[in-house]
C-alpha cells in the first residue's frame, strides 16, 4: 500500500515481538458498539498515474491567471513571483519540518523567521513583529483583541472601507469577548473623519483602518492617528506591504499596531489560501503581541543563534491565560515572503510599487474615457486599485470581457448594496500597457 513500507514478513515479526497474532488485538480497547463494522464508504486508492490525471482534470476546470488577463484584486493579488521562491520552498528540510521546538536542529527556520520579523519591521516602521499568523483578516482580529486587552476598553471603531471579509472576521473574534464593534460609514470612498470625530470617545480602545483601503484609496492616516490618540485609543492599520515601497511607513504616521496580508510577497493567489498575516507593533506592546516570536540567544559556548522566545505569553505554558490560542504561524509562507523581500530588496520594492501606481493610474485615466464609465471618488489618490462607476451592471461588462479571456474587476454591489454598478479594478506590475489597452478596446466593443 502507498507510503506504508512494511512487508508481510516484517509485520509478522513485529506482531510476534509484541506477543500478538493480529493487529486487531491492538484495537480491542475500542468498545464493540462503536467499532466500525463496515469499511469506510470511500473509493479505492489510485495509482500515481490515474491520480495525477484525476486531479489535473479538476484543476483544468478552473480559470487561472496564466490563461486570463486579470484585473481582479480585492485582497488576492497577481504580483511578480520570482522563480527562485518555489525552488527554495521545495527544499524539504524547510517544508517537512515542524515548529522549531528543538533550536539546535531548526536554525534554518528560526533564522528565516528572525529575518522575516526584521523585514516586516523595516517595511512598516515598527519596533517588533511576530512570526506571522493565519492571514491578513485574522491578523486584524488578533490586533483588535490585543488593543482591547491593552487599553482595557471594550469598544472598537472600524472603518467600512476595511475589506468586508476582514470586518466579518473581526466581528467573529469580537463576539465571544463581548467587544463592541462599531462600523464607521465612508464618505467619498474614505473613512469619514467627522463621523470618526463624532463617535470616538474615552471608551474606545481602538480605531481600525485599512490603507490603501478596500476601494484602493489612500486614507488620511496621520489625521486619523491624531484623532485616535487624543482619545487614548490605539490605531490599528491594515496595510498592503507592496504599497510600502512608496508610501510612508505606517509607524511614521502614528499607527500603534500594523497588520496586513502578506500574499503579495511571493505567494500565489491559490483560490484564497494559504496566505500569511503579519503583525508589528511598538516595543511597549510587545508582551501583548500574540503568536510565535523568534529572538537571539547564546548557547553554552557563547555562540549566537535563534530560539522561539517570550513563550510565557503562549498557550502551551499559560493555557487558559494565554494571549491567544495560536500555536503555529504560516512559517513556509513567511519564508516565501522573506525570500521575496530579499530578492526584490530596497530598489525592487520601490520599483514594484512604482509600477503598480503608474500602470493603475494609466488604466484609471483611459478607462474613464469609455462612454458610461466614470471614476468613483475621483478626488482620492489611489495606489493599485480604483473604483469605476458604470452605467450598466458590472456582471454584463465582465461577461463580455470573459469572452476575450479577461477577468474584470470585482462587483462592489456584492459587499456594498449602495455601490451597485461599481467595479473595483486592480492593476499590478504584471499587467502591460497592451493588456490595459486591450481591456479598454474589449470593454468598448471595438475588439
Amino acid at each position: 500500500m502507498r507510503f506504508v513500507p512494511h512487508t508481510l514478513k516484517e509485520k509478522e515479526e513485529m506482531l510476534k515481538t509484541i506477543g500478538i497474532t493480529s493487529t486487531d488485538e491492538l484495537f480491542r480497547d475500542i468498545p464493540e458498539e462503536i467499532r466500525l463494522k463496515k469499511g469506510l464508504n470511500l473509493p479505492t486508492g489510485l495509482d500515481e498515474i490515474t491520480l495525477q490525471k484525476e486531479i489535473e482534470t479538476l484543476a483544468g476546470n478552473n480559470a487561472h491567471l496564466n490563461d486570463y488577463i486579470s484585473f481582479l484584486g480585492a485582497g488576492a493579488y497577481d504580483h511578480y513571483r520570482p522563480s527562485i521562491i518555489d525552488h527554495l520552498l521545495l527544499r524539504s528540510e524547510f517544508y517537512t519540518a515542524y515548529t522549531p521546538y528543538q533550536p539546535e536542529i531548526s536554525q534554518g527556520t528560526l533564522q528565516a523567521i528572525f529575518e522575516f520579523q526584521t523585514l516586516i519591521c523595516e517595511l512598516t516602521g515598527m519596533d517588533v513583529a511576530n512570526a506571522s499568523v493565519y492571514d491578513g483578516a485574522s491578523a486584524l482580529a488578533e490586533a483588535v483583541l490585543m488593543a482591547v486587552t491593552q487599553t482595557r476598553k471594550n469598544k472598537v471603531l472600524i472603518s467600512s472601507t476595511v475589506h468586508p471579509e476582514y470586518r466579518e472576521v473581526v466581528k467573529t473574534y469580537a463576539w465571544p469577548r463581548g467587544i463592541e464593534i462599531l462600523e464607521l460609514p465612508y464618505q467619498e470612498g474614505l473613512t469619514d473623519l467627522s463621523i470618526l470625530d463624532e463617535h470616538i470617545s474615552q471608551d474606545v480602545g481602538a480605531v481600525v483602518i485599512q490603507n490603501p483601503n478596500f476601494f484602493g484609496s489612500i486614507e488620511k492616516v496621520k489625521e486619523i492617528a491624531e484623532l485616535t490618540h487624543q482619545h487614548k485609543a490605539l490605531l490599528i492599520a491594515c496595510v498592503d506591504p507592496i504599497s510600502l515601497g512608496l508610501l510612508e511607513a505606517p509607524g511614521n504616521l502614528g499607527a500603534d499596531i500594523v497588520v496586513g496580508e502578506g500574499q503579495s510577497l511571493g505567494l500565489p493567489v491559490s483560490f484564497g489560501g494559504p496566505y500569511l498575516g503579519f503583525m508589528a507593533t511598538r516595543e511597549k506592546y510587545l508582551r501583548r503581541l500574540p503568536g510565535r516570536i523568534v529572538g537571539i540567544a547564546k548557547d553554552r559556548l557563547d555562540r549566537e543563534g535563534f530560539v522561539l522566545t517570550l513563550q510565557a505569553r503562549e498557550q502551551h505554558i499559560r493555557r487558559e491565560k494565554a494571549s491567544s490560542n495560536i500555536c503555529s504561524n504560516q512559517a513556509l509562507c513567511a519564508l516565501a515572503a522573506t525570500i521575496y523581500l530579499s530578492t526584490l530588496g530596497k530598489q525592487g520594492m520601490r520599483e514594484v510599487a512604482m509600477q503598480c501606481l503608474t500602470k493603475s493610474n494609466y488604466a484609471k485615466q483611459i478607462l474613464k474615457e469609455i462612454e458610461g464609465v466614470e471614476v468613483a471618488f475621483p478626488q482620492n489618490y489611489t495606489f493599485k486599485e480604483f473604483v469605476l462607476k458604470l452605467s450598466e451592471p458590472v456582471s454584463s461588462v465582465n461577461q463580455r470581457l470573459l469572452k476575450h479571456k479577461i477577468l474584470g474587476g470585482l462587483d462592489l454591489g456584492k459587499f456594498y448594496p449602495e455601490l451597485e454598478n461599481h467595479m473595483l479594478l486592480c492593476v499590478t506590475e504584471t499587467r502591460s500597457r497592451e493588456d490595459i489597452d486591450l481591456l479598454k478596446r474589449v470593454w468598448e466593443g471595438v475588439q
Partner: protein
Amino acid sequence: MKEKLIFEKSTPGRKAYSLPPIDTPEVELTTLLPEEIIRQEPAQLPELSEVDVVRHFTRLSQMNYGVDTGFYPLGSCTMKYNPKINENMSRLPGFALAHPYQPEELSQGALKLMYDLSEILSEIAGMDKFTLQPAAGAHGEFTGILIIKAYHQHRGDKKRTKVIIPDSAHGTNPATASLCGFETIEIKSNAHGLVDLEELKKLVGEDTAALMLTNPNTLGLFEKEIIAIADIVHEAGGLLYYDGANMNAIMGYARPGDMGFDVVHYNLHKTFATPHGGGGPGAGPVGVKQFLAPYLPKPVVEYDDEKQKYFFDYNRPHSIGRVKAFYGNFGVAVKAYTYILALGAAGLKEASEIAVLNANYLKTILQGKYHVPFDQVCKHEFIISPEKRVKEKGIKTLDIAKRLVDYGFHPPTVYFPLIVEEAMMIEPTETETQETLDAFAQALIDICQEALDNPEILHNAPHSTHVSRFDEATAARKPILRWKKN
C-alpha cells in the same frame, strides 16, 4: 558554520529581481501622490544577487531537520511522510493561480474538490457537514467552540459558561475556551490515564457548555468509557468537542461521530500528510452533526442539483460568521485530497493500523529500559520517562532528547502531557520501517547506558550540531527580536 544574516550580506546596488520597464506614459510621481505621504526613507531591505539569495536560503535549509532528513517521532504531531505528488498537484495553475473571486462557473474544479473533500472528511469522522475555512488545528478549535456557543445562545440557554477539559489536554484547548469567552474547568485523569467518570458526573451541570476531548488521548490511550462520557455530558445539556489531533490512530476503525461527538476538527497536516512547513500552513477543517450545521462559518460549498453546479452558499443567517478571509487554506486542501485519493478506504485504514502497530512495537522494545507509566495497549503514540536509576544520575528527559539529536533523530515531544513527570511522547507514524524503529530504540537504550556510565555526555548534548543548548531565559529577559544596522 554560522550563516550570516541576509542583511549582513547586502551590497548596495546589487539586484536579484527582473521587472519589465514601465511601458505606460511617464508621469511625475508627485502628480500621483501628495508629497507628504511618499516614503522619505526607503525600507532598509537587503540588496543581493540572485545566486546570493539562493545560497543563503539553501544554507539555511541545511541547518534544519525535516521528515525527509530522518525519523521525527514528535508525539501528537503525526510527522508522517509528505508525498511529493501532493506538492505538484497543489502547484497546478488551475489551483495555485485561481483567484478566489473569479466567477463560480469558472471555478467548478476547485469547488468540486472542496465539496468532495468535505464529504470524505464527514465519512471518515462520522459527521454530517464540514467547513474547510479554519487555517490550523487551534483555529478549528476556535471555530468549533464558537459553534457550540452560538448553539446554546440561539436556544436562549445563557447559563452555559463553562468548558470541561482533561488535565492531559493540549494547551490550545483551554486557550481556545478562554478565547471564546468560556471558563475552563479542568478534570483530573484517573490512575489509568483516562477521564474519571465519577469526577465528570460531579463537574457537569446546567453551566456546562461542552467537554473537549482528544480520543485516543494525549497519553495514546483510547477513552474506553467514551459512550458513558458522552451520555453524562449530553444529559447535562452540554455538547462534545473532538480534538482531532490523534485521528491518525483510528481511521476506518472508529468514528468520533459514532462515539457521540457533536463537533470535530481535523489537522490535515497531521492525519492527511500535508507538510508542516516549519510551523504552517496547516488546515483545521471542522465537522458538525446536522443540528449544528446552521452555525458553520460562511460560505459553505453546496451543490445545486438542478443547475448541476457547485456554489458558495452565503445565505446562512445563523452562521457564526467568518474566521478567515476567502475559503480556508485551499492549497493545503488540495494536498490532503490528493493523499486521500491515493490511499482510498483500505489505505486509510491501513495507515492507522500500521501507525498503531509501530507504536506498540516500539513501546514493547523499550519496556524494561524506560519507565512506561501506562503499561497497556496504546494507539498511535505512547509515553515513556527515564527510569529511576537514570534520574538518580541527574539526567532529565531534556538531556535524553538532546542526545538523540547526536544519534541523528529528531527528539520526541517532551514534558507533555503535563500529568506525567519527565514525559517523552513518542509517535512513530505508519511511514517508518521496522529498521528505523529498531535503530531509534537502540539509540534510546544506548543513551540510557551512557547516562549511567558518563552522564556528562548527556548534559552537554547535542555535540554534533553547530550550535548547542541555548540560554533561553536570558533570551526572553532581554529580547533581541530583529536585526538593526550598527
